[in-house]
């Protein structure tokens, strides 16, 4: 069986949640495998030690050139040390999306993006499960891994695995030439908006199902009647109907309300990735097969444009 590597993201000395999820995914590829964690950065001894609590082997790749994980630089460093025909696991986040597809080309291995489950390997075939059309249908996807594979794993779907302690191996000497045509400059922090939805206990969240900017008024009326704040999905922000600080999701805010009411939101993983703390989720959607109904506690199949004003009226009467 080929070697399996997991790239470990970290910030402020802590491992990213994806670390042990990748370990879980690796065990579904091969239950007996010793997974090697790859940690890049500068001044990363503590993170490597933490990784070595769960991974049999931890590759420490320490260099000033890697102080920020620029995908092009990381790719070059990895190509200088990864064995051929291996598996590389990455999270399907903004870093994994940046690195994975190009890495697979350079390694001449297969690529499968946004994997939600792994059924195992049979011969040279890796059997994975994916979703299409933002989760509306699932698919079995088979991948020829005879020359290895880069697998991007959806964050949050694999239960973090229990690892076994191991040791750190310093690979920093093998980085080689990592000169790059793309240079990292800086991170610009997201702007703070008029409401802080990360502190809200009750959120009325609106998605593309609202259809028109004018219709947002009914959402604000409902929220006011409930004593809730209004948040939204990404398309509402893309259309500039609401400010970015109201966007829930991986590229928006992470919220932890007690009650989350999703109006005309399909329930993509990037949206639900921002809903934490196990709130009571109510979904109102006109499509009974919308993926949001898989994660909601209570669902209503209805046209929000008709349902929301009626609901608001009744709440006002209380």
């Amino acid at each position, binding site marked *: 069986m080929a070697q399996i590597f997991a790239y470990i993201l970290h910030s402020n000395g802590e491992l990213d949640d994806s670390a042990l999820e990748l370990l879980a995914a690796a065990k579904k590829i091969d239950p007996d495998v010793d997974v090697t964690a790859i940690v890049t950065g500068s001044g990363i001894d503590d993170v490597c030690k933490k990784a070595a609590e769960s991974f049999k082997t931890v590759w420490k790749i320490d260099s000033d050139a890697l102080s920020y994980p620029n*995908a*092009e630089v990381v790719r070059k460093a990895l190509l200088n040390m990864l064995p051929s025909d291996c598996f590389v696991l990455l999270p399907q986040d*903004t870093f994994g*999306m*940046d690195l994975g*597809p*190009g890495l697979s080309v350079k390694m001449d291995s*297969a*690529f499968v993006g*946004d994997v939600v489950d792994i059924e195992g390997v049979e011969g040279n075939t890796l059997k994975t*499960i*994916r979703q*299409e*059309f*933002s989760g509306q*249908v*699932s*698919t*079995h*996807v*088979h*991948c*020829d891994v005879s020359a290895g594979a880069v697998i991007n794993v959806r964050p949050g779907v694999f239960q973090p695995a229990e690892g076994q302690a191991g040791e750190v191996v310093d690979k920093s000497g093998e980085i080689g030439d990592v000169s790059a045509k*793309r*240079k*990292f*400059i800086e*991170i*610009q922090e*997201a702007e703070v908006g008029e409401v802080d939805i990360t502190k809200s*206990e*009750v959120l009325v969240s609106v998605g*593309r199902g609202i259809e028109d900017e004018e219709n947002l008024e009914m959402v604000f009326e409902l929220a006011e009647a*409930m*004593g*809730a704040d209004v948040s939204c999905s990404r398309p509402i922000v*893309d259309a500039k109907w609401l400010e970015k*600080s109201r*966007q829930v999701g991986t*590229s*928006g*805010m992470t919220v932890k309300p*007690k*009650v989350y*009411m999703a109006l005309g939101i*399909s329930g993509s993983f990037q949206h639900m990735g921002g809903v934490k703390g196990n709130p009571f989720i*109510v979904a109102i959607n006109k499509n009974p097969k919308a993926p949001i*109904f*898989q994660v*909601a*506690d*209570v*669902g*209503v199949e*209805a046209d929000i444009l008709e349902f929301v004003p*009626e*609901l608001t009226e*009744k*709440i006002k009467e*209380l």
Partner: protein
Amino acid sequence: MEILVCVKRVPDTAENEIELNAEGNDIERDDLVYSVNEWDNYAVEEAIQMVDKHGGSVTVVTVGDEESEEVLRREMAMGAEKGILLSDDAFEGSDGKGVAAILKAAVEKGSYDLIMTGAQADEGYAQVGGMLAAMLDYPYASLVNSIEVGDGKLKVGREVEGGNIEMNEIELPCVLSIQTGINEPRYVGIRGIRKVASVEIPAMGASDLGIDAGSVGEDAAKVRRIDYFVPEMGEGAEMLEGSTDEIIDKLIELLKSKGGIK
């Protein structure tokens, strides 16, 4: 600046509920409404705005069947000057690398400073842009939501977790995958489409592109979709049933008990 934008024709999820067919092995394809992939519209708009400011021209390209021509025409109605259809029976069943290899051949037939793709398409792989860049040995940045043109290089913002922006400098030529929200794509009316209705759109196949037919398409694909299915799910949501009044009453009771109404 000569810009090539890769666009894909996809089922429009805003217009269709995607469902399994009776056999349960494919999606129901009759009556599907197709449109251009949402992300690609933003890429084309961005390219047009860059050319308006800095000169040059925008070309749109797609790998697909004859029907894919309609999305090229739509993007040309937005303001792209040229369209190229890459179509061949040998291309069918290509995986991401196959599509990227076909696009690479098309890139090499022209002379472009900048190539753009959408961040992801209907299948959610988010792969073609990064693969194309690696095959061309061009630098790449994904999830781009701002572009500033400099001398031989661009300053690009990548949208990363939490809505933060990662600023990068990237040398030209390069490949960028574009994230939604970078601009407001212009509206295309029937009139605009009519204007470009008779523009010639060249189609190129494997031999025109100098591609070995065996290196793309189904036989070369390492990644294959076996079927579509509806997964056995846990319980899912408790669906409230009854008349609208009854549903609203139940919902209000639930919201009250969970602290959802203050």
